[in-house]
């Protein structure tokens, strides 16, 4: 509960900060456009174009994120990932990472809980990476702005390399742990 409060306060501070930043951006823009009146049309048209493109999909994307956050609770993700093993765990990690919503730092405590539960490292890495860059609502925004080809290519490549990275990091950490346990009693602090 304490953590939750902290998170909430953090968010509130963020929105205040962002609003101030928005005000500053507006003032700078107004000043710039009054110094360079010939740029006015181009800047306003471009901003307007992107605004329309964004506002057409943003409510839908945000609603989807709300749905995922309520229907895929964090506890469920941790429970499922904690008890799966093998290559299946890696793919389940990707799937479970792609469903819930929130910035990456929300996923760190979940990954830490998984680590403590003894989940596979490759699965945790896959989960974190998927959380970071292949969320479903996020992919929809990518589809809107960069097109189906770009989105599909990046999605497929990301999944392939995330699986490779997960397995590689798992091997590296296991190899390192083995080396450390051999030289136990030695200079432990020098291991990293």
């Amino acid at each position, binding site marked *: 509960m304490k953590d939750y409060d902290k998170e909430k306060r953090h968010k509130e501070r963020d*929105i205040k900060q962002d*609003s101030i930043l928005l005000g500053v*951006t507006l003032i700078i*823009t107004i000043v710039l456009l009054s110094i360079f009146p010939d740029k006015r049309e181009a800047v306003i048209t471009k901003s307007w174009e992107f605004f329309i493109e964004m506002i057409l999909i943003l409510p839908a994307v*945000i*609603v989807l994120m709300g749905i995922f956050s309520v229907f895929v609770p964090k506890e469920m993700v941790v429970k499922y990932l904690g008890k799966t093993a093998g290559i299946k765990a890696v793919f389940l990690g990707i799937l479970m990472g792609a469903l819930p919503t929130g910035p990456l730092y929300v996923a760190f405590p979940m990954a830490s809980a998984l680590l403590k539960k003894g989940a596979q490292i490759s699965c945790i890495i896959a989960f974190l990476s998927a959380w970071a860059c292949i969320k479903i609502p996020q992919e929809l925004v*990518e589809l809107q702005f960069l097109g189906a080809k770009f989105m599909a290519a990046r999605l497929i490549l990301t999944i392939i390399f995330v699986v*490779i990275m997960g397995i590689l*990091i798992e091997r590296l950490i296991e190899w390192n742990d083995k080396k450390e346990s051999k030289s136990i009693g030695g200079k432990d602090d020098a291991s*990293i």
Partner: protein
Amino acid sequence: MNTTAIFINVFAIGCLIFIFIKDRTKTKQALTVALKSFFRILPIVLIIIIFIGLLLGFVPQNQISKIVGEQAGFSGVLVVALLGAFLHIPSLISFPLAASLLKSGASITSIAVFITTLTMIGVVTLPLEIRELGKKMAFLRNGISFIIAIIIGIIMGAIL
């Protein structure tokens, strides 16, 4: 309204109807969460949209393509990779930003790298990651993500 936007909205409405039939209280909860996060994200969305307008209006295309375009080569890719790693903006906003860079002469490779490092690597959140997962895992994850971001970008540039 383009087909993609229609598809996204139909998909969202479909999901909403489906969960409304299944569980009304949770649907209400989901919509409350959505409304709150909409207002939380709105200022940064507007900031990025204004920034895009300024970028496209003020910076000449050949200037952008000189820094992050085809002729910038590998150093250009490295610059956007580092930029993506250090910037701390919501990933939802990275796509319009990337699209505007693409329009103004950036290469496919650099925007794919930019999106990947922006979302996967967090220099700002690294201390938090170290605290939760340990130094070893945090450094390996961020470091290898940086390398695979560049590989993904190069492949994207070659196939698209």
